[in-house]
């Protein structure tokens, strides 16, 4: 079926919203789908090259140990083994620590792993050796034959005690476990607290789960011997980061490296890193003169893919007797894990979104980022924003509970008002820019979601249920999300002599439908049928510079770049057509790829013909005043950070016998500015909310006291599955961003960011009679039963 016909059909069934454009804002079916639905996706493990060998890593079974010796002789003797690499086999400069992709002067101890462990291992899973063999089976057989003599050392595992004088050091020879100490501060906190009617306290731990994309990581390395080009396929969100880092690591020119993100089965943050596997696998390919593939298995994913984990928050709130929140002060302890592969990115995004959608006169929060002997911490869907949002919502709930004011009213009192945009929170980002919210209407968002959730009808529902001995609860959660972070993403738009439109961008995709939204924008600007637009992404060999797909930045940045480039192409086409047809440019229009005289459609020339004119062969000529090729490149992005916002309401039933939480209803009001494709936005929201519910109720990485990860399979580590997830109802609001021409705001994480807080608040509401206050998520049924019992005893 023609894509166009499908568009018409789908818009008929879903209600096309005319926006003065054909595709922008329409629910266009994704162009990615057909390939993926027929099993023809090309993920990194689908790549097959002649002579390709398979690799397997030997990994540390200890959280902290010295390596006394490694004997690889038995492994090397296994039939089918081509190489066994340990640290001693790494030539300079690969025997140096992995480069720091995100350097910062605030990092006190920039400890980085060696590509293969040198003499110390600092987390279970750290790579010690790499075996290359004809099959993965044989490589694993050989790994089992490698004899490593470890001297086990005390492990620093528990976050709360990690800054004690007598805490084990996560790394040998370090003065303490402090990575960095950040201070998010503005206003006169002492004054605000001195004058406050009440000073309230709240403290809690947030435990966010890991990546758990259904596709694990993987790397294929291929060294072309003739021109020396090293091609790397990696299931990554940031091919350019890998190219840059590897070039530095290997001390070679970036032009010798080509990094390709093929189809990637989900990213969520942890695939945006620079991992030692991305050094070792290509190195092995060079050394062996054959392509080498390494695919992470799920056990490895549990222990080596960067994850988010614990942060402990201890706060005081300065509040008036009417519920005006004036100030916030306190401390955060953030578990960094063993290394700092994302620099202080997560630490920064954990505090910079404070104070959320609320106006606070002053804030002083000190954040300690702390080493532990666990896998390194990484942003996971939302990065630190869910943590910051959760914190602000805990503040709201604390105020509501202790001052006995409905939490919706506390929000209304304290929200930034719509007349106040652009709104400077008072906080300066660590990059020196003042945090500014570009546009929004948080009050309207709250009203919309309360209506959608039938919030007013809840009291009655709760009463009816209580008569039957059932406990229902409802909880609200609001958030802002800074999106579209710079510094840039670029795109080239080019038309070929057949009238096909080619868009190339460095942005990579892991399921967000970027190709489709890009095609929508470009097809509109050029007035061509969307099926004439072909998009290529995620390949450093096809587009010169890029940054990465993180933090809901791609649609905003690439969307803007594509819009700009497409308009430059449009201008060039119209200028050339005017010249060739000898017509005033203002009398021309484009329809379905044909430039035509508005008054007389028979006078026309196609975009393809124009492209042909600009790309002549020997003997031809370029028309006067024009440059060759009907194309344009733009790196235009958003100025500043467009801020999306959301408000969620969760309604639950808690079984006080078992502690089971059943989500009855979940409502979302979401504002991401102008939506390129509402269906894709909704998909991101729903997926994000479910991820957040998973964090709130299910996902917990359990370690023992020696830092041994225990929950390393999907029987013990619980991901959200379809049966426990609610339908999610969504209402949209659009406050366009003034920071980019299309009014875009990012949409990838706005579902996750407020979700945990909404779930936790609803459980507390259900168990109000037991005075349950939750100080840890994920919330387990066992924990709820303990809290209910404590509450019941206290009442007696």
């Amino acid at each position, binding site marked *: 079926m023609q894509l166009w016909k499908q568009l018409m059909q789908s818009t008929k069934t879903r209600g096309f919203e005319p926006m003065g454009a054909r595709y922008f804002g329409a629910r266009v079916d994704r162009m990615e789908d057909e390939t993926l639905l027929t099993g023809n996706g090309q993920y990194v493990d689908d790549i097959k090259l002649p002579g390709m060998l398979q690799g397997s890593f030997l990994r540390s079974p200890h959280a902290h140990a010295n390596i006394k010796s490694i004997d690889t002789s038995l492994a090397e003797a296994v039939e089918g083994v081509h190489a066994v690499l340990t640290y001693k086999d790494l030539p300079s400069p690969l025997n140096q620590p992995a480069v720091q992709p995100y350097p910062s002067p605030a990092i006190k101890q920039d400890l980085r792993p060696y590509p293969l462990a040198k003499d110390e291992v600092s987390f279970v899973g750290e790579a010690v050796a790499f075996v290359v063999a004809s*099959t*993965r*089976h044989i490589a*694993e*057989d050989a790994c*089992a034959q490698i004899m490593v003599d470890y001297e086990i050392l005390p492990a620093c595992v528990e976050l709360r005690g990690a800054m004690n004088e007598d805490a084990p050091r996560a790394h040998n020879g370090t003065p303490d476990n402090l990575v960095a100490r950040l201070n998010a501060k503005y206003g006169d906190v002492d004054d605000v607290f001195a004058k406050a009617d009440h000073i309230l306290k709240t403290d809690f731990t947030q435990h966010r789960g890991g990546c758990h994309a259904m596709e694990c990581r993987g790397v294929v390395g291929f060294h072309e011997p003739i021109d020396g080009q090293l091609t790397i396929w990696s299931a990554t969100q940031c091919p350019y980061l890998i190219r840059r880092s590897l070039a530095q690591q290997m001390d070679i020119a970036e032009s010798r490296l080509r990094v390709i993100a093929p189809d990637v089965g989900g990213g969520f943050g942890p695939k945006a890193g620079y991992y030692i596997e991305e050094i070792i696998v290509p190195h092995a390919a060079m050394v062996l003169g054959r392509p080498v593939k390494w695919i992470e*298995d*799920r*056990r490895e994913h549990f222990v080596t893919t960067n994850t988010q984990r614990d942060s402990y928050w201890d706060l005081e709130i300065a509040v008036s007797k009417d519920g005006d929140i004036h100030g916030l002060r306190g401390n955060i302890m953030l578990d960094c894990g063993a290394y700092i592969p994302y620099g202080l990115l997560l630490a920064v995004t954990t505090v910079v979104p404070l104070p959320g959608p609320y106006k606070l006169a002053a804030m002083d929060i000190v954040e300690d980022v702390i080493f532990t002997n666990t896998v390194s911490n990484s942003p996971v869907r939302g990065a630190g924003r869910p943590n910051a949002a959760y914190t602000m919502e805990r503040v709201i709930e604390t105020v509501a509970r202790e001052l006995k004011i409905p939490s919706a009213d506390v929000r209304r009192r304290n929200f930034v008002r719509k007349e106040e945009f652009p709104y400077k929170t008072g906080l300066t980002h660590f990059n020196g820019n003042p945090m500014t919210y570009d546009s929004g209407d948080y009050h309207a968002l709250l009203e919309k979601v309360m209506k959608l959730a039938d919030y007013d009808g809840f009291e009655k529902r709760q009463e009816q249920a209580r008569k039957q001995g059932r406990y229902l609860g409802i909880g609200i959660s609001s958030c802002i999300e800074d999106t579209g972070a710079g510094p840039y993403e670029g795109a080239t738009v080019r038309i070929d002599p057949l009238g096909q439109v080619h868009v190339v961008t460095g942005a990579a995709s892991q399921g967000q439908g970027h190709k489709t939204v890009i095609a929508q924008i470009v097809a509109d600007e050029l007035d061509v049928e969307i099926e004439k637009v072909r998009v290529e992404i995620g390949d450093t060999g096809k587009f010169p510079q890029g940054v990465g797909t993180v933090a809901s930045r791609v649609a905003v940045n690439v969307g803007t770049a594509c819009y700009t480039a497409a308009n430059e192409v449009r201008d060039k086409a119209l200028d050339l057509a005017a010249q060739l047809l000898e017509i005033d440019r203002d009398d021309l229009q484009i329809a379905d790829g044909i430039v035509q005289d508005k008054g007389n459609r028979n006078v026309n020339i196609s975009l393809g013909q124009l492209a042909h004119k600009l790309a002549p062969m020997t003997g031809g000529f370029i028309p006067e005043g024009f440059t060759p090729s009907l194309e344009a490149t733009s790196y235009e992005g958003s100025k500043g950070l467009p801020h999306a916002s959301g408000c969620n309401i969760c309604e639950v039933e808690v079984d006080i*016998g*078992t502690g*089971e939480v059943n989500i009855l209803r979940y409502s979302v009001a979401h504002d991401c500015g102008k939506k390129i494709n509402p269906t894709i936005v909704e998909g991101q929201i729903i997926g994000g909310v479910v991820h957040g519910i998973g964090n709130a109720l*299910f996902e917990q990485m*359990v370690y*023992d006291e020696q830092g041994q990860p*225990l*929950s390393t*399979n999907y*029987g*013990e580590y*619980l991901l959200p*599955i379809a*049966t*426990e997830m609610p339908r999610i109802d969504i209402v949209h609001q659009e406050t366009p961003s003034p920071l980019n021409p299309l009014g875009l705001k990012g949409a990838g994480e706005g579902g996750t960011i407020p979700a945990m807080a909404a779930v936790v608040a609803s459980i507390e509401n259900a168990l109000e009679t037991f005075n349950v206050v939750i100080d840890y998520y994920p919330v387990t*049924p*066992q924990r709820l*039963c*303990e809290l209910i019992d404590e509450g019941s005893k206290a009442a007696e």
Partner: protein
Amino acid sequence: MKPAAFKYHDPKTLDDLTGLLKNKEDVKILAGGQSLVPMLNMRFVMPDHLIDINGIDELNFIKQEKGTLSIGAMTRQVQLAHSSEITKTCPILQEALSYVGHFQTQNRGTLGGSLCHLDPSAEMPAIACLLGAELTVKSDKAERKIAFDDWALAYMTPNLEPEEVLVSVDLPVWQEKHGHAFVEFARRHGDFAIVGVGALLVVDKKQNISKVALCVAGADVRPQRLHDLEKSLIGQPATDETFLQAGAQARNIEAFSDAYVSKAYRQRLSGVLVERALKQAHERL
């Protein structure tokens, strides 16, 4: 996560199988594979010999003989779930099965496999315990019949010698009119239960309890009948108050702690689920 190498065997008859078991050492039997293959993939077990018994048709049967449901060890869970024979005579087995894994795993998983694996909270062993099943094992030399109480020796350890294989399970189904219920609490649909409870209940003309069986799986490392509680319930009126008291008493059950779930919570769940199972069994009378 690829298995270590093994020598693969696929006998087609029970005699071939027992012959292999006699002659080979360091063997694992491959039935449905839903529990064993993950362990092989993760190299938690690395047998020299893997004996695939999926081709032994004579181990797959469901027979009803004089009040006893006799089921071959290789009968698939999906077959049990759809058997009209079992619906008629032992519906609690099908209710328990509704909690077992997912339909994809039931297409492979077997009754025998579950009974030999003996996960503490598994539903099939719980039903076998509840009904007082008798298990038949065979070796090359002999056949043994083992009462369920003697089958589960310890944590995930069945009463099986290395050269023996479980052949069939006999479930003495209750003939008289009775109520049944299997309830369990798991975090998500299809997950291993934290605790599961099976209840069978008969009341007399005065609505007093005349016969009752209660089995709790997941509290301790083996499923257990609550014999003392059962005795104390005989003659009691079949009322909510009785069931509430029974639940309170069931909280004293032996239970274990692990990294995820405390002993106290297992005990609490046992109590709550015993009460709910009795209530539901009563409602079904």
